[in-house]
């Protein structure tokens, strides 16, 4: 029963931290609003572009390589998460799981080498 209470209280604690973390910016920004001057002019509300008159909308279509890296991230991140349960239970699983994981990491690594050879990892 005790460990269940620790469990529930721990997650309550996270909620408390979240509430505090939301409250701090809200309180501080509201306080700031009361203290600071607010005299917007047209020039102040312009977008900063090193002194040049801003042109076009900045939200353009972006280079595709960011997307490729995002895909790679999803793949490897999910695979890394699989490593954690194995690492936690390593003592009980023994040599068989070790070899299994070895194969798993090698497959992962082959995937990386494939992406590398395909030029996905090249930034320029």
């Amino acid at each position: 029963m005790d460990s269940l209470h620790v469990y529930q209280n721990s997650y309550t604690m996270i909620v408390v931290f979240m509430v505090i973390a939301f409250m701090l910016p809200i309180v501080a920004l509201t306080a700031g609003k009361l203290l600071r001057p607010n005299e917007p002019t047209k020039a102040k509300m312009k977008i900063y572009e090193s002194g040049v008159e801003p042109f076009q909308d900045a939200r353009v279509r972006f280079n595709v390589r960011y997307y490729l890296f995002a895909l790679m991230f999803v793949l490897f991140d999910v695979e890394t998460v699989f490593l954690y349960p194995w690492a936690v239970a390593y003592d009980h699983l023994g040599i068989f799981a070790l070899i299994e994981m070895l194969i798993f990491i090698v497959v992962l690594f082959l995937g990386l080498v494939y992406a590398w050879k395909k030029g996905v990892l090249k930034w320029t």
Partner: protein
Amino acid sequence: MEWVSGLLASEPSSSNFFTYIFISLPLLSVVLGFVTYAILAERKVLGYIQLRYGPNRTGGKFGLLQTVADVLKLLIKEDTRPKQADRPLFWLAPIIAFVPSFMVLSAIPFTESVVFANFGVGLLYFIAVSGLTTIGILTAGWASNNKYALMGGMRSAAQMISYEIPLLMSLVGVVLFSGSMNLIEIVEQQQYVPYILVQPIGFIIFVIAATAELNRIPFDLPEAESELIAGYHVEYSGFRFAFFMLAEYVYLFAMSALITVLFLGGWQPIPGLGFIPDFVWFAIKFSIVVYMFMWIRATWPRLRADQLMEFGWKILLPAAMANIFLSAIVKELFF
């Protein structure tokens, strides 16, 4: 402080909720105090490394009130918002960036009794929640409708997701040796040997990846001032800007605390020096880590964007994979 851990075991109720708010507020003030003086310390350390004094006027010889003055100035500064910016997102971005940085602190055990949340997935929780800050930064970049900001935000997202994987993988070795993801148990396992000695490669990979996650030099491309002015927060001024700054330094706090807990043995004393209280040990190890981050900042030049990404994927990731292997085999043979 004994009653804090006692409180964790008590029956959950709504009165607990308010007690928790009470005991979390001191942590918040400690963190804010840390941020205030970490900024000053960073400027001082950088100053002395670069053979100058750093802040030395406001608040006595050591500039002790410099950051306080800076914060007050930011608080009463006019907050300009570009007309073309996406208003709700522009308003939300600093909050999204800050909230996870404080939330992760709940998982860190500071001493044996000062433990806020004690749960089995502490380590994963830390990494997962800290990843959310990327969304805040990307939102800021997108909402500003500024070209520099968008580029900074995109770069930051690319960098943070690339270094998240070596970061996660370097920790598998630690989990392997401790057999737990509970940060308290990990510290207890390090009673005699801190994991920096067992996992030296993991430690180095983790520190490099953490520097990149913190957007600090040599990996501070998202806010590289020589090319992107200030990166994702170009359009932010006043207290909204202050919240990005705050998030950055709260992360410095959290990451240094995590490195202390995972690799340096947390509150565990060096054997034979157990008479020094445990929070002093934590503070000493923590300060060394923070100083190391400042030292790195003062020493290395900034990388190029392509070097950064290729280093992450081609060197750190294979090294982290090899480290998992090596740790598993070492553990099989010697433990």
